[in-house]
């Protein structure tokens, strides 16, 4: 007999309790009158018994060596990570206050290199009077002339050249929203002495005349 049309079926949570024996069947008189719930309970018990049988989900037991290997991997990862409960090295290195000086330094070197190649003299109105404009320094006579490079062929280099020759360092920092701090690399570049600047220029030219710097194979 099925009296299920007259009363609510047992809820899944209650069927689980009945299947696991947490609740006795006698406490659920609905079962005696409802084929649907009796069938659901029987299927649930069968499924649980089947899953508990050996072979239903045998898991590969790794070799004993694997456990030592796993421990070693964890140990290495933890050693790289630092103290417990602390931020990882990635978190520490990705902080903006560390990224900004690196980007500024790289940018400064690129700008110096572009300025060295530029035939035009930069406008120096916004550059502090104590600092010589880099592009205005006289090339060393011992250096071979550079091959024509870049600005006319490469729009990106052209843009950088424009920046390098039309803006002073302070204007450029403002334009590019770059924040520097006293003692940073960008400050150091702009306050080089004439001799230091010449040496930097010589090193850069030497580097840029290497075939690898020009993209030659």
């Amino acid at each position, binding site marked *: 007999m099925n009296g299920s049309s007259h009363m609510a079926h047992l809820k*899944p949570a209650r069927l689980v309790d009945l299947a696991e024996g947490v609740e006795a069947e006698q406490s659920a008189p609905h079962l005696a009158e409802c084929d649907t719930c009796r069938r659901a309970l029987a299927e649930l018990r*069968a499924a649980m018994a089947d899953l508990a049988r050996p072979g*239903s*989900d045998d898991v*590969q*037991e790794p070799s004993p060596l694997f456990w030592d290997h*796993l*421990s070693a991997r964890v*140990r290495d990862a*933890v050693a790289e990570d630092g103290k417990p409960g602390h931020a990882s090295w990635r978190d520490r290195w990705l902080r903006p206050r560390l990224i900004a000086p690196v980007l500024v330094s790289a940018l400064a070197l690129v700008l110096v290199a572009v300025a060295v190649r530029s035939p035009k003299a930069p406008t120096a109105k916004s550059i502090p009077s104590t600092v010589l404009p880099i592009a205005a320094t006289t090339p060393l006579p011992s250096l071979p002339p550079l091959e024509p490079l870049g600005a006319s062929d490469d729009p990106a280099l052209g843009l950088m050249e424009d920046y390098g020759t039309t803006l002073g360092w302070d204007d450029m920092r403002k334009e590019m929203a770059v924040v520097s701090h006293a003692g940073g690399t960008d400050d150091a570049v702009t306050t080089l002495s004439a001799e230091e600047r010449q040496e930097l220029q010589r090193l850069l030219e030497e580097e840029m005349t290497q075939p690898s710097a020009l993209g030659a194979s």
Partner: protein
Amino acid sequence: MAELDDAELIEACRAGRPGAFDAIVERHRRSVYLLCYRFVGNHEDASDLSQDVFLRAYRGLGGFRGGSSLATWLYRIGVNACLNRVSVKKPLTEDLDARQHIDTFHESPSERVLREERGARVRAAITQLPPKQRATLVLRMYQELSHEEIADVLGSSVGAVKANFFHALGNLRKLLGDERL
């Protein structure tokens, strides 16, 4: 270190005692690995996930208040790691040949083949369950956690866990068709 209980090991870790976290890993690595394996169905991902679970645990030790057991806490991290993994990666179950089994001494070759095939089908079906049902089924049937512990791991109510368990078993039967589980 091996004689310390979990709470003492955690304190030793926080105090920076060498070997304390190694002891935690050694004590819980098997259960964490098996949880991951049953979740993702292959050794490679389970191995990577296990490492990830312990690394996350190490980073989070400072915030572990001991409201639940260390094992439950590790399961929680493990389930979250597995759920993240399965949300971005299609489950990959291993071929029969890639698996070895524990005890094959007392069965014939044909029985062994049948058992392995059946196990592979069940494992593949489990990886097709919705994530919460999968987590509930694995934690209940294979890790043998109580419904209350599973609720703690999953951040659900006990009633929701039981309902998930019920539906997981029903869906597993549908996925396996006429074959008995």
